[in-house]
């Protein structure tokens, strides 16, 4: 399960060595473009950019496809919704179900956008360790006047990384609970409502306990919201400067066209 969410693959490529902030900003910029393009040329260009980035970081393409797999249902849902519920020139008809040409185009574009968003995000998470992402987010948030809201950028970044951390933990305790309830004769098919209750109530109480345990562990290791440092000495190098210059050009292009 961990592999799914935090598929960090250690390495020593240019992408690995870039400052996390550069990569996070890059992902934001890429998302802006992804949400804008609808032409075939635009899409091809995105594919080209993605593939060349993958080539530089020496991570097998297989890894990226694997991370799409769990989302396939979601993607096909989007695609078919668009396909069948968009009005337009009918290209296929079966009783009341009809697919339109416009729907096909729109569905393809939308689905591809989601796929691209995911792929670029995976590119970030697979070349950056979670704590580096946290450190990057923390640094990016630092200029914001968060302290007027009574919170530090460390707290906020810590919250983000902890919530990411709890996802696989919750999933694991869900599996344990499900197995134990199944072994006590819980029948999910016969009484789904009871199944939901008998799983969710203990799940909430175990997760509360887990939260309490982790907060005790954090406290006893001197956690504080300010004055922390990071193992990762993050700092911009020449590659980061080049990347930022490219970003500026792209941003200019984005705004003008």
């Amino acid at each position, binding site marked *: 399960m*961990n592999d799914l969410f*935090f598929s*960090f693959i*250690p390495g020593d490529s240019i992408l690995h060595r870039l400052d996390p902030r550069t990569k996070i900003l890059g992902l934001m910029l890429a998302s802006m473009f992804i949400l804008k393009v609808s032409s075939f040329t635009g899409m091809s260009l995105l594919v080209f950019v993605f593939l060349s980035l993958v080539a530089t970081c020496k991570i097998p393409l297989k890894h990226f496809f694997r991370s799409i797999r769990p989302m396939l249902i979601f993607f096909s849902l989007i695609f078919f919704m668009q396909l069948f519920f968009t009005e337009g020139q009918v290209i296929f008809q079966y009783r009341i179900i009809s697919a339109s040409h416009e729907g096909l185009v729109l569905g393809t574009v939308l689905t591809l956008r989601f796929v691209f968003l995911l792929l670029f995000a995976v590119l970030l998470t697979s070349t950056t*360790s*979670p*704590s580096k992402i946290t450190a990057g987010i923390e640094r990016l948030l630092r200029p914001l006047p968060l302290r007027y809201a009574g919170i530090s950028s460390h707290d906020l970044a810590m919250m983000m*990384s*902890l919530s990411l*951390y709890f996802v*696989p*933990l919750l999933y*694991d305790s869900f599996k344990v609970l499900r197995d134990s309830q199944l072994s006590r004769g819980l029948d999910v098919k016969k009484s789904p409502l009871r199944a939901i209750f008998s799983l969710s109530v203990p799940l909430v109480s175990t997760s509360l*306990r*887990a939260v309490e*345990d*982790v907060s*005790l*562990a*954090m*406290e*006893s*290791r*001197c*956690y*504080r919201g300010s*004055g*922390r*440092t*990071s*193992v*990762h*000495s993050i700092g911009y190098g020449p590659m980061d400067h080049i990347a930022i210059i490219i970003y500026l050009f792209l941003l200019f292009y984005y705004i003008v066209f």
Partner: protein
Amino acid sequence: MISIQNVSYSYNGHIPALHSVSVEIYKGEFVAIIGGNGSGKSTLLRHINGLLLPSAGSVTIKGMDTKDISSVFNIRQIAGMVFQDPGSQFIGMTVGEDIAFGPENLGLPPKEIRRRVESSLSAVGMAGYNDHTPGKLSGGQKQKVALASVLAMEPEVILFDEVTSMLDPDSRMDILSLIKQLHENGTTVVYVTHCLDELVHADRLIIMEKGHITHDGDPRLLISRGDVMNSGLGLPPIMELSRRLLNAGFFEPGCFPLSREELRDVLCQLK
């Protein structure tokens, strides 16, 4: 080093978990605390590094009061704690990051943090595990990592709360010998357990019952006198055998053997 004075504590409104407990722990000691379930061992331990604050009485470490907000940070650096459940005390996604968490909080420079991560990992015999996911390690390895993350803060006292209770016998021996080694290198150890076999390395034993300290002294003496059994904890077979041999006059209470090896040595000397 650690001074606990008339400490009482009750979890919000329940019956008190500690009744006016007083105890001094000195530098370099290996103190074992035993007692049945719910006797207040964890509660007492959590007072030592300020995770809990006494309802009455006071706890001081090297002269710093745990109630003093400004010294809590220093107290927790001096007294580290390893918890019972190997699964739920990790904060990092990787072993290296988890161990770095403490030093990061201390505000150390990145280079020093990395040095401490390396040295504490190799101290527990897990060098090279930096990029592993803590969740995927075995129970014993998890506890070693948990110990390493405490070591990375370079504490003077380490508090252990039933750290071996979820481990198999082999991992238990591993962890125990690591702790013994730490003690030999000068770390003060407070070791909570309800396993009497683990007392071999302790030079002082505190027995707790219903929120009171009922006995405090030399483990060999306390066990040979049978004080332990009165507290509702059964003796392991080896100690039971030793006790019967003692009662039959085979040896003095002062050299009461606590393990199979010790018993063998004592018996061999008899000849």
